[in-house]
């Protein structure tokens, strides 16, 4: 009987319009935030941090970004990997060129740089759509990665062609480099995830979000009722790339520590994030969390069960994983095109009525 909206009357439009209209959801949300900030940091081991929690948080940001583009604005992009690379390389260039710059500011600036690049490659979306646009974003993917591996300026002409992150602190605590503690890295990622999820929610609930969705659902009608398609699409590309860029910056800055564009940000990254968005739920912020969590946890689980427990060779487990992901994508699109988030919503609707469904 916990999950009720009866009696929870809204008397103002803002309160009717809030993120969690049901009281129980609100409490659960604050409890979760409290847990993530106050409890998790003290429970976190290096293994959990590195194999699940930190990649999960970083990919949530990337998935949020791509979801804004595909799920909210309906523009398909296969260039996510390259845009993450832009964030990573911008971080590298900024930290090495301006060593005094606070690292959080660097991450945000890296996001802004990516946003600018994203707008540039988003320009074709004004003329083309659907998978035509997907091909245009592939151009971004391959061209940018080529640029980052070929032009020495981007990796400061390092002999290996790799970029590596210098050590940086926040309030005296080391957050980048191999010596940074799991707790510091976790808190950094968490702050960004919470902040950016909040931004994403704000942008999608108001006019900006509605113009995106109107372009997604019917672009011609949207233009006739007054949506400026140029602004709608380019803001979607900018915001999306900003998120993806920050994710790339974090992935390189606090998680990988060193990276090579072709290897860390190849086309497979683009697909990985795309799958997170599809499985999690197109056009849903919660979906971005669920999708990222699912695709980060699945390989770990498969490894634990098949390789560690059953003694399978690692490559076989990996192939099985590829197969499962592929099958899941097809399944999700057939059964529930709005992904895990839609399943969650259905479950909640049932729960609202439980135990008296009629």
């Amino acid at each position, binding site marked *: 009987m916990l999950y009720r909206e009866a009696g929870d009357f809204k008397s103002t439009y803002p309160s009717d319009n809030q993120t969690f209209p049901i009281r129980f959801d609100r409490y659960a949300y604050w409890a979760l935030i409290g847990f993530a900030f106050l409890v998790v940091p003290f429970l976190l081991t290096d293994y959990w941090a590195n194999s699940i929690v930190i990649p999960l948080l970083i990919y949530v940001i990337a998935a949020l970004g791509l979801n804004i583009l595909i799920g909210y604005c309906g523009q398909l992009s296969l260039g996510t990997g390259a845009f993450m690379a832009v964030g990573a390389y911008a971080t590298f260039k900024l930290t090495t060129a301006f060593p005094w710059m606070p690292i959080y500011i660097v991450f945000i600036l890296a996001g802004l740089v990516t946003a600018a690049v994203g707008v540039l490659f988003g320009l074709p979306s004004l003329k083309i759509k659907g998978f035509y646009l997907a091909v245009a974003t592939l151009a971004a993917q391959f*061209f940018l990665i080529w640029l980052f591996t070929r032009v020495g300026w981007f990796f400061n002409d390092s002999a290996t062609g790799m970029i590596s992150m210098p050590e940086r602190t926040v309030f005296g605590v080391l957050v980048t480099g191999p010596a940074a503690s799991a707790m510091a890295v976790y808190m950094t990622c968490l702050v960004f995830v919470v902040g950016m999820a909040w931004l994403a929610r704000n942008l999608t609930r108001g006019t900006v979000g509605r113009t995106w969705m109107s372009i997604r659902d019917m672009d011609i009608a949207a233009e006739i009722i007054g949506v400026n398609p140029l602004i709608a699409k380019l803001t979607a590309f900018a915001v999306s790339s900003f998120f993806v860029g920050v994710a790339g910056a974090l992935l390189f800055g606090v998680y990988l520590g060193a990276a090579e564009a072709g290897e860390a940000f190849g086309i497979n990254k683009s*697909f990985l994030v795309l799958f997170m968005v599809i499985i999690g739920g197109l056009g849903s912020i919660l979906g971005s969390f669920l999708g990222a969590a699912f695709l980060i946890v699945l390989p770990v689980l498969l490894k634990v069960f098949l390789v560690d427990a059953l003694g399978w060779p690692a490559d*076989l487990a990996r192939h099985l994983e590829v197969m499962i992901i592929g099958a899941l994508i097809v399944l999700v699109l057939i059964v529930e095109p709005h992904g895990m988030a839609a399943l969650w919503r259905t479950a909640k609707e049932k729960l609202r009525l439980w135990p008296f469904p009629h």
Partner: protein
Amino acid sequence: MSDTVLFAFEAAINGLTVGIMYSLVALGFVLIFKASGIFNFAQGVMALFAALTLVGLQEGAIPFAHLINATFGTSIHHFGFNIPTLIAIPLTIAVMVGFAWLVERIVLKHLVNQEPIILFMATIGLAYFLEGLGDIMWGAEVKRLDVGLPQGGNIWFEENTQWLGFGNENFYGFYIDTLNLYALVIAAILVTALVIFSQYTKQGRALRAVADDHQAALSVGISLRFIWVLTWSIAGIVALVAGIMWGSKSGVQFSLSLIALKALPVLILGGFTSIPGAIVGGLLIGVGEKLFDFFMQPIIGGATENWFAYMLALAFLLFRPQGLFGEKIIERV
């Protein structure tokens, strides 16, 4: 003639032969797109899968041997017999037809009337599934594929082009793989066969009817599902041909599925609905990327093949979105 011009020519000829591969994959795309409006991202992986299956059958490898070994602790790999190529190819075709049937049954049937973008994403999923399946069924190591096609350079071609050097001593004639000449011929045969099939047979007419208008085709009694199985089967056979060509040249390996990505810009150049477009587009991209790399390498560095095709496609999209041969789309409300 100067060295540069001759080498540029050689680069262009190489490009033509790579282009044939792109054309073959793009051809599979066009077939499926015409019949079902689906942009089949899995076409390249289908080529990989077909080639893997062919090699597996030839060698008499046990499907899922790795999986069985890992699960039951056995150590089995081969049946102990080899299947001759002439039998293995029809068997592989049968597998591809079976795959087409399954795709129709399990995927397409449930995704009718979905938006194209959803279908596109579904085929990306399909590509991943098929890739994983291929690796689990036949193992992931690079395999040598030999169906009796000749290897190595073509001496006849080299000798007979030497005169083009006009006395240039560094020039011994153009080098070209004999295999690529075969590929050219086979592609031509394939396209001719397809054109004859679609123009002069009952099924071909049904196919074109479906491509034109699903509803109308249904209403005159054409089975949409049969047509889909048919087109996916044909696409499977085209994939097998592409797989054999590529596999004979550089071994059956994952890079094969990456040519699928190259086929996308080919389609944008050629138009999504045009068979000649796919061929011409493939050749143009093949030649274009080799020549571009040849001339730009000293200036901006090599490996521009990675992105040239996409950038070219992008330029095309901005100025002629319907491609070279596609039909113009008029929007209405």
